[in-house]
């Protein structure tokens, strides 16, 4: 880089490294990007495989494609609770993977889990990569300094066939969070705090880089939580520059580079962070010291307030509709909202650190008698690790149900759903109408906050319990 040359952002470096030279013929054709890792699950892939088969095409790079079952797997163990359609969908994935030679971490296997939890666990998610999956929370992998985004089923088919995706360049947006997080404030609160500023569509058309001292201080688990919810404010992708925290997490994972390859990779990864001379199209600055534990009150993640706050007055038809759906009155203290269910899980918050943080709140206390609380580890590995340190016993003796890995009540494709009118404190990512079950009401929050709500039976500031 010469002094006159402007530097590049992390996103620009990732983009440039994946443009296939000569991959677009006409001037106004988008860049053709090469995909390093394609993650596949049972819900958004069957029609893509079917399309391939009908056209007589094969999967170009089964060695860069990996599948798991997560969205509609039962979490009570085995296939017992799966309905006929879910069973069929899982069976079809099994057949497709077998025919195409794609490794599958199927239900019951020791590596099965939520697609965005197992990629990093296996060391398949690495800095500098382009990762796609037919799932909007693919942005999770951006925590490693990868370019990662969700795609639709037609694009899944396209990537299966060609390992490539034509894409237009997007705008660069920096979210800079500086300062120490106050006690009781987690990575989930950082991203909810961002969405409180941006609303649900502030990130549309952007690649987001989260940066600043607060982000640097987060663990990989915390960074994944932040990047995971990028799509909840509309961003195409969210990412964080790789650093020693990233490398320490990755080293010795099953698919991480070894020996000399590790050194070469490390040299490259260290070149990825945004250059000092690089410019972003936009920047949002957040003071971490002003963040608090947040809770959503409405039916989109932008309808969020501090737990110490009150249900706001409606400012739009959308707000008024959300209040009706949530059966809430403006002015009600958040802490006065009673709950029926608690869900600790999802690709946002079901890693070992999340379960530990929730468990730490319990301290010998018990789930409120009116509450039914579920803990669903993000992967079979997370479940095993948690059991190794006795977290399962701790949760169970406190009255939580301890389940097997899957997406579970985040979207309720399996039997874990809310009944109409039930209100849930949830560590997941979406509070849309009916998301956790038709008529169900979802309040999003961090794992410690959800655990605290389970104990008290209402939404509560976790700082009052610890």
């Amino acid at each position, binding site marked *: 880089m010469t002094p006159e040359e402007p530097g590049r952002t992390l996103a620009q470096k990732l983009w440039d490294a994946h443009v296939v030279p000569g991959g677009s013929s006409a001037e106004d054709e988008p860049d053709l990007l090469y995909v390093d890792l394609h993650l596949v699950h049972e819900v958004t892939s069957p029609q893509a495989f079917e399309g391939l088969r009908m056209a007589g095409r094969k999967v170009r790079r089964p060695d860069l494609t990996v599948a798991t079952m997560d969205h509609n797997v039962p979490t009570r163990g085995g296939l017992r609770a799966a309905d006929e359609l879910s069973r069929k969908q899982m069976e079809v994935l099994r057949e497709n993977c077998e025919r195409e030679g794609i490794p599958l971490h199927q239900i019951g296997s020791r590596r099965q889990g939520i697609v965005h939890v197992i990629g990093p666990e296996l060391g398949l998610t690495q800095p500098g990569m382009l990762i796609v999956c037919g799932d*909007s929370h693919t942005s999770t992998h951006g925590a490693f300094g990868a370019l990662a985004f969700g795609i*639709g089923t037609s694009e899944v088919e396209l990537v299966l066939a060609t390992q490539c995706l034509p894409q237009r360049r997007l705008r660069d947006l920096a979210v800079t969070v500086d300062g120490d997080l106050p006690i009781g404030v987690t990575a989930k609160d950082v991203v909810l705090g961002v969405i409180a500023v941006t609303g649900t569509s502030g990130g549309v058309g952007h690649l987001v880089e989260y940066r600043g001292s607060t982000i640097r201080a987060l663990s990989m688990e915390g960074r994944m939580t932040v990047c995971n919810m990028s799509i909840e404010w509309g961003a195409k992708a969210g990412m964080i520059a790789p650093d020693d925290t990233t490398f320490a997490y990755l080293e010795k994972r099953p698919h991480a580079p070894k020996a000399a390859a590790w050194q070469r990779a490390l040299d490259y990864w260290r070149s990825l962070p945004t250059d000092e001379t690089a410019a972003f199209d936009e920047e949002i600055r957040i003071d971490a010291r002003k963040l608090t534990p947040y809770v959503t009150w409405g039916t989109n993640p932008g309808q969020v307030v501090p737990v110490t706050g009150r249900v706001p007055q409606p400012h739009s*038809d959308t707000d008024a509709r959300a209040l009706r759906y949530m059966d809430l009155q403006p002015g009600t203290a958040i802490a006065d909202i009673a709950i029926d269910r608690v869900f600790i899980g999802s690709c946002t918050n079901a890693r070992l650190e999340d379960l530990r943080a929730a468990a730490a709140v319990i301290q010998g206390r018990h789930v409120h008698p009116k509450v039914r609380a579920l803990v669903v580890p993000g992967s079979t590995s997370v479940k095993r690790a948690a059991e190794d340190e006795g977290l399962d016993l701790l949760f169970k003796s406190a009255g939580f149900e301890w389940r097997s890995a899957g997406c579970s009540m985040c979207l309720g494709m399996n039997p874990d759903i809310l009944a109409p009118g039930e209100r849930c404190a949830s560590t997941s990512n979406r509070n849309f109408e009916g998301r956790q079950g038709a008529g169900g009401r979802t309040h999003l929050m961090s794992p410690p906050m959800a655990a605290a709500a389970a104990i008290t039976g209402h939404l509560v500031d976790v700082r009052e319990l610890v």
Partner: protein
Amino acid sequence: MTVQPIEKVAGTMAPLDRADVDTDQIIPKQFLKRIERTGYGPFLFFDWRREPDFFLNQSRFDGAAVLVAGANFGCGSSREHAPWAIRDAGFRAVIAPSFGDIFRANAFKTGILAVELSASQVQHLIDLANEEPSARLEIDVRAQEVRGEGFAYRFELDPFIKHMLVNGLDEIGLVEQHGAAIGSYEQHRPAWLPSVR
């Protein structure tokens, strides 16, 4: 794979005057268990259909070709089942002030036009549909114009998407034409990159 070229969409409108319509509303999760690409029409806005005055329950909007909705339409999940359901219910286009990125991409691949107009233009169309449900629109892809009686609104359209639409091109076939370039890129990928095996 054969793809039908789309140069124009014409027909009446159905108004959905709500912002941030997410894909969970467009097609709830219980219908994502099917392994087919068609047959989702009856499940479009499945939960909202229980509201008696929801537009799908008003016969005056029967047969509409264009859904007109509020900002950030199709936010949320990547499920392509959302545009499939819109298509299967008979719509050929959605007009809104803005769209979720993944939904917009999925819509075009499904042959549904996702057309962005300004908030005031969209409001005009919603009012027009409510006052005069038989009012017809024409969306002209080549001219990038939404036309009705007494108005013509220009919209932006990615030139590549436009090229694909008006020529009815199969994107996979198009990318496959760059097979040699892709192969050459593959030769130069760094050796440390992981394989799933």
